[in-house]
């Protein structure tokens, strides 16, 4: 583009150095005078010479147009002198002077007109170029191209429009840094982007941030911009920085630079501002929709994890795994770990995602976090920590071979005690500054899941305690009955018989009365026995599960096929639970099933006591029908066991129970 004012090879006759202008004008003018003089000499043969002087305007006007009024005045003088000397000596001095004055006046007017014309042509071309550049950028923004693409387009358009040698776009960050998001140069140079420098170490970006307005820097100062070394390497001598204000805050800065110290005309700032406005709109839109999108993703992931946590059974493992899987993608991290802190200052991996060395990070793997590492910092301070690595050499051994460049970890705090940590790591530059904040949402869910699990475990434990206390009371009651009332009644019955035996034969009425008394006492004893059996089966505490279940089976009105594979005693709670399951199931079989046959099998297997009660009755057992089955669920679950009741209508009833032997 010919009007581009900045570089030397593009300089025209009017804008070049003055000497060049004068010499050029003089040489061309001299040539033109030669040509005109030749023409005049030929015409002079036929026409009177006086009228021919005017022809020298043919030499003066072009020079006035292209080289300006000064050289044109020189050529005017040269033309008059040439004419006077070669063609026709003047009759008087006056004629030459008048001719000279006319020539100079014409030159001035023509030069002025030419310059004005040139200016307005240039202006309109500049405007057209600016408009089409703006339109291109606006079209891109409207098409919703990725922000990075838009940034590159803006730096290129601004650079070309302003005739810059180098253009950069930087975004201000919260931590007082500026990150280069796009760059353009007309020179062959590698343009690193993604570089992050503290604002204070920059020149242009810092001044723009301080002033909140365009800033112009020239001379050696200009090389100390955000592109410091690059600017030096390219020999930058002048720069302009313009703020990008998006959504009411200073979002970033556009810096245009040139090797020419006077490259940028005064209206350059204004011209750049048109672009930064466009950029700001696009950025605001892009950020809003990105935030929206991110928010939606994050919300969805959080919801998934929270649902898992809420639904979670005794084991929060699935929550840990799901968090590990989701966090990385959402926070733009490559690797994630969920860790529990142990009292001996080690940490245990609960879940991990994206790491190369998976063996070191298997669930349950323990290690002592190295100093310095983010996990160690969280462990020590209870607060979020970040370590960015410029070189692999500074990394703790646990990151060997992972090529990690940045790590962030946040604490998992369960009921105000430091429980563990979620850590993320990136292999591509620093993690975004808001990583710590966004991790918190996840650490909170994990903490809730853990708290839930713990309170669930406490609930189960307290339920087990309640049941155990109930059992103990019943056992004591049974014992008290046995040692007290039963014992006395037994002695009484025996004594009555003794007395009866002593009664003389003639008092047969007394004897019969005593006999009835003894029989009554025995009947009361029988009732008492039924009662105390219901309270607690004595045989269970005295003989254990085997004899107790055999007694149960023997007494059952429905034939019971019994299979017992037990060889020792178990914890009271387990024995009682197993006994109650069998007793309630067999009672139900008798009461509801209309069965002809039942099976009772109990065995110890794989650390569990397994119990199976099957009948061939009518089926259709439902826990809502009474308190019996519900009570079984309570007992079994309180011990951390499982119970499965399947009772299809007409298909008999099958109850399977497994009781853990260690936990009980």
């Amino acid at each position: 583009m010919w009007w581009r004012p900045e570089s030397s090879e593009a300089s025209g006759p009017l804008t070049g150095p003055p000497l060049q202008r004068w010499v050029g004008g003089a040489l061309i003018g001299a040539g033109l005078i030669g040509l005109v003089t030749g023409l005049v000499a030929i015409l002079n043969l036929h026409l009177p010479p006086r009228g021919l002087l005017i022809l020298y305007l043919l030499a003066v006007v072009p020079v006035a147009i292209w080289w300006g009024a000064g050289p044109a005045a020189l050529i005017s003088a040269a033309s008059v002198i040439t004419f006077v000397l070669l063609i026709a000596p003047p009759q008087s001095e006056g004629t030459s002077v008048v001719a000279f004055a006319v020539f100079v006046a014409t030159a001035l007017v023509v030069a002025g007109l030419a310059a004005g014309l040139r200016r307005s042509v240039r202006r309109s071309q500049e405007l057209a170029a600016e408009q089409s550049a703006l339109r291109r950028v606006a079209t891109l923004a409207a098409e919703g191209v990725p922000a990075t693409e838009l940034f590159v387009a803006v730096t290129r358009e601004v650079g070309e429009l302003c005739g810059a040698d180098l253009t950069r776009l930087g975004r201000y960050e919260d931590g007082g840094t500026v990150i280069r998001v796009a760059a353009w140069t007309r020179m062959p140079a590698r343009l690193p982007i993604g570089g992050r420098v503290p604002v204070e170490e920059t020149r242009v970006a810092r001044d723009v941030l301080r002033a909140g307005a365009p800033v112009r820097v020239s001379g050696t100062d200009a090389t100390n911009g955000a592109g410091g070394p690059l600017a030096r390497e390219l020999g930058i001598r002048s720069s302009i920085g313009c703020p990008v204000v998006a959504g009411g805050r200073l979002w970033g800065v556009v810096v245009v630079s040139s090797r020419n110290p006077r490259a940028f005309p005064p209206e350059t700032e204004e011209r750049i501002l048109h672009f930064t406005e466009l950029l700001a709109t696009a950025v605001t839109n892009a950020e809003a929709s990105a935030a929206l999108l991110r928010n939606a993703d994050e919300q969805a992931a959080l919801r998934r994890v929270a649902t898992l946590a809420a639904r979670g059974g005794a084991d929060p493992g699935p929550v840990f795994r799901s968090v590990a899987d989701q966090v990385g993608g959402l926070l733009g991290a490559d690797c994630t770990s969920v860790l529990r802190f142990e009292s001996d200052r080690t940490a245990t991996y609960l879940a991990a995602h994206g790491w190369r060395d998976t063996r070191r990070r298997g669930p349950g793997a323990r290690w002592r976090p190295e100093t310095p590492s983010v996990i160690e910092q969280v462990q020590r301070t209870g607060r979020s920590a970040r370590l960015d690595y410029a070189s692999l050499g500074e990394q703790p051994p646990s990151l060997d071979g992972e090529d990690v460049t940045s790590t962030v970890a946040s604490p998992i705090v369960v009921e105000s005690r430091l429980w563990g940590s979620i850590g993320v790591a990136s292999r591509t530059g620093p993690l975004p500054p808001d990583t710590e904040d966004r991790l918190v949402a996840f650490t909170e869910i994990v903490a809730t899941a853990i708290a839930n699990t713990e309170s669930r475990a406490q609930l189960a434990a307290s339920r087990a305690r309640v049941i155990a206390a109930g059992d103990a009371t019943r056992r004591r009651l049974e014992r008290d009955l046995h040692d007290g009332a039963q014992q006395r009644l037994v002695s009484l019955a025996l004594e009555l018989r003794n007395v009866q035996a002593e009664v003389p034969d003639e008092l047969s009425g007394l004897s019969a009365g005593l006999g009835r008394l003894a029989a009554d006492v025995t009947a009361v004893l029988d009732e008492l026995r039924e009662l105390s059996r219901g309270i607690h089966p004595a045989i269970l505490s005295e003989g254990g599960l085997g004899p107790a279940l055999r007694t149960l089976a023997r007494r059952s009105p429905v034939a019971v096929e019994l299979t017992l594979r037990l060889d020792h005693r178990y914890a009271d709670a387990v024995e009682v639970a197993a006994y109650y399951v069998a007793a309630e199931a067999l009672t139900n079989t008798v009461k509801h099933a209309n069965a002809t046959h039942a099976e009772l099998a109990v065995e110890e297997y794989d650390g569990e006591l397994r119990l199976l009660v099957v009948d061939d009755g009518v089926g259709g057992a439902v826990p809502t029908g009474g308190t019996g089955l519900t009570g079984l669920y309570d007992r079994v679950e309180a011990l951390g066991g499982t119970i499965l009741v399947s009772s299809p209508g007409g298909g008999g009833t099958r109850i399977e129970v497994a009781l853990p032997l260690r936990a009980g």
Partner: protein
Amino acid sequence: MLWCNAGAVVRRCVIVDDNERFLAVARSSLERGGLEVVGTATTTTQALELIGALRPDVVLVDIALGTESGFDLVHRIVAESSARPHVVLISTRREDDVAELVSASPAAGFVWKADLSARAVRDVVAAGEQ
């Protein structure tokens, strides 16, 4: 009174029970039926000493001896005593409730305390010998 070895006539008897009142009632009941109660004990240790010293024909053992178990005592009598008396388990509980345990023990049999008599004891011993 005749001294007899086990298996012939059952005459001399020791009762092991932790309830004094029952001991008294049982003694009169048994003695009326012709069984001489040569001694009573309330604990395992006492019982074993007594059995060693008195060499009874039959020992009646209460299943529930306070904190001790009558079944354990039966085992020890059989294992440790040179006297080799017959052992009959007694209890306030009914036979139905303890049958599993009684049949698993080396005792000759079981008599419910309310039914205790010399005859019942002799019947159990006789049944146990067959």
